[in-house]
């Protein structure tokens, strides 16, 4: 390949564990950066996504800002992948979907006994939360789904190396699991 593959990554409503699993490729990272170049990512100081070959999304969408970032990624990335349980089906943050926002707010910011001055944060600088946490494929089209919480480092490695070699990514036995 003549030029490096441009890759952007972000964490929406996720825990960063999927990014950690990416870094769990360990010293293979040293080789990988010969082949790819990072655009917007928690690892760089690029704050907005430019045109990219690949976008990797961790986490579902839980607020307006997540939706905005997700759309920015879709606009700019030729291939978009949902990395991990949260991106694919909402994961742990979606456990709140069965509850009413009002109750959660009150409990955490108002009635919690340890508080001195309660009050629900409402500054315009804080993004609007959605009533429910959504998987990202409900908002934009997703090209690949990598399951796991987090997906194993070897699965991420296999996916990337397949893509870099021009093969259709294929996770063999042992790399596809959901825990």
């Amino acid at each position, binding site marked *: 390949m003549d030029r490096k593959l441009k890759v952007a990554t972000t964490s929406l409503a996720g*825990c960063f*564990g999927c990014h950690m699993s990416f870094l769990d490729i360990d010293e293979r990272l*040293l080789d990988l*950066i010969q082949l790819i170049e990072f655009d917007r990512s928690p690892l*760089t100081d*690029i704050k907005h996504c430019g045109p990219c070959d690949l976008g990797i999304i961790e986490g579902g969408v*839980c607020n307006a800002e997540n939706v905005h970032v997700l759309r920015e990624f879709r606009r700019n990335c030729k291939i978009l992948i949902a990395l991990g349980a949260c991106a694919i089906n909402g994961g742990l943050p979606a456990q709140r979907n069965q509850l009413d926002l009002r109750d*959660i*707010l009150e409990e955490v910011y108002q009635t919690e006994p340890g508080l001195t001055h309660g009050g629900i944060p409402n500054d315009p600088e804080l993004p609007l939360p959605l009533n429910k946490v959504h998987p990202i494929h409900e908002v934009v089209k997703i090209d690949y789904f990598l399951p796991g*919480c987090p997906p194993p480092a070897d699965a991420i490695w296999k996916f990337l190396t397949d893509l870099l070699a021009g093969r259709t990514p294929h996770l063999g036995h042992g790399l596809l699991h959901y825990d």
Partner: protein
Amino acid sequence: MSFKLETAVYPEKLKRVAIEPVSRVEGHGKVTILLDENDQVHQVRLHIVEFRGFEKFIQGRPYWEVPVMVQRLCGICPVSHHLAASKALDMIIGAKLTPTAEKLRRLMHAGQMLQSHALHFFHLSSPDLMFGFGSDAAQRNVVGIISAFPEVAKKGVLLRKYGQEVIRHTAGKRVHGTGSVPGGVNKSLTVDERDQLLKDIYQMVAWSREAVQIIRGLFEKNLEEYNAFGRFPANSMSLVRADGAMDLYHGGLRARDAAGKVIFDHHNYEHYWEVISEDVKPWSYMKFPFMKAFGPDDGWYRVGPLARVSNCDFIPTPLADKAREEFLAFDAGRAAGATLGYHWARMIEMLHAAETIKDLLHDEDILGTDLMAKGERVQRGVGVIEAPRGTLIHHYRVNEDDQVIRANLIVSTTHNNQPMNEAIRQVAKQYLNGKKLTEGLLNHIEVAIRCFDPCLSCATHALGQMPLEVSLIDAKGGCLDRMVKNQQAASLTD
């Protein structure tokens, strides 16, 4: 109450600059700065913009699910949540851990400390320190470090890998393992696994010592700037062992004021609320804890490596203890009060973690198979641990049907909320006032935040009210979700 530069008098007349998202940290945060026409800074805030709602949705779940669920708040330090929850639940089932179980948990925790501190220093913060705070943004990241300092980068990657392997051998998985359970652990360490870890541990200790020298060298080279950068006096709090030693897994709470005077000592953490309370501010989902004795204005405190290293009387492993003495004595003690001193203290703790792993691997209990304990069941449990980023408090109530009925978490980064805001306000005054704001200057603000190694997604487990209306439209144009203006406002008054 209000702090200097927290709230401008006429915000509507000022121009707004935002750093969004704060990068090379874990989680979601942004900084807003309000300036007047002469570029004088009037307001600086670190906003935590995400929520989880964990305390609420954990209610009704069987208690044994908690240690595996709660760690999914944070993928960088999952072991901390895993263990803090397990400790709280040990108390609920009345278990006194077997020596092997406690040592395996301590091993897992030391692995976590090693990997998290290595990640933070080498992958996230070293670009600022090694290239300069205002250096070229295109190079200022881990890839730049790998290209410019390949040997340093490689050691960083391998230190982190080693810590992750310790976690895998004790918890079953590198991220979100299942090793710790209420009453003990569910997996013993095999001779093979122990020997694999033993093989590399001396190298890890040696590299951790080098890391301490790297940050010391940076302090020596930039003495004045490092000492003054974002500096402010603060109280501090951490767990210490009964004899005053640093203990990251268990102990009593000790707090000191800015002059080093002890405020409380060996406070039983089961009653943490006797000494700590929390405040809420409308502009952040992260709460503001403070010591009750001093109130919200004066009672805030820092936690984490800098607080722990200066708070304890000694570190119970020899190399780290010596490194601690050198740190505290450096430049007549000034580095130990510097915000950038966090990095140095963090590397001392990484060395301590490596030494702890070495000692535990040589302990014969570590291969034991007596893993579980039981006792008399009670309803309430508190678990506190020193996570990589500071004191982590988990508190649960469980009913007779084994369901969680109440949960309260005070996570490490939350304690550092006011200190982080204080640090960025100092930096704004020192570097930004009256200047044309460039990317490099703005990065100084992020450098101050990164000192604390914040874990912003841990710190936000609840959600707030938004004064807007938004519809979420799906890929085909249908309305998927909708949030109506001031929907929760009613709940405040009814």
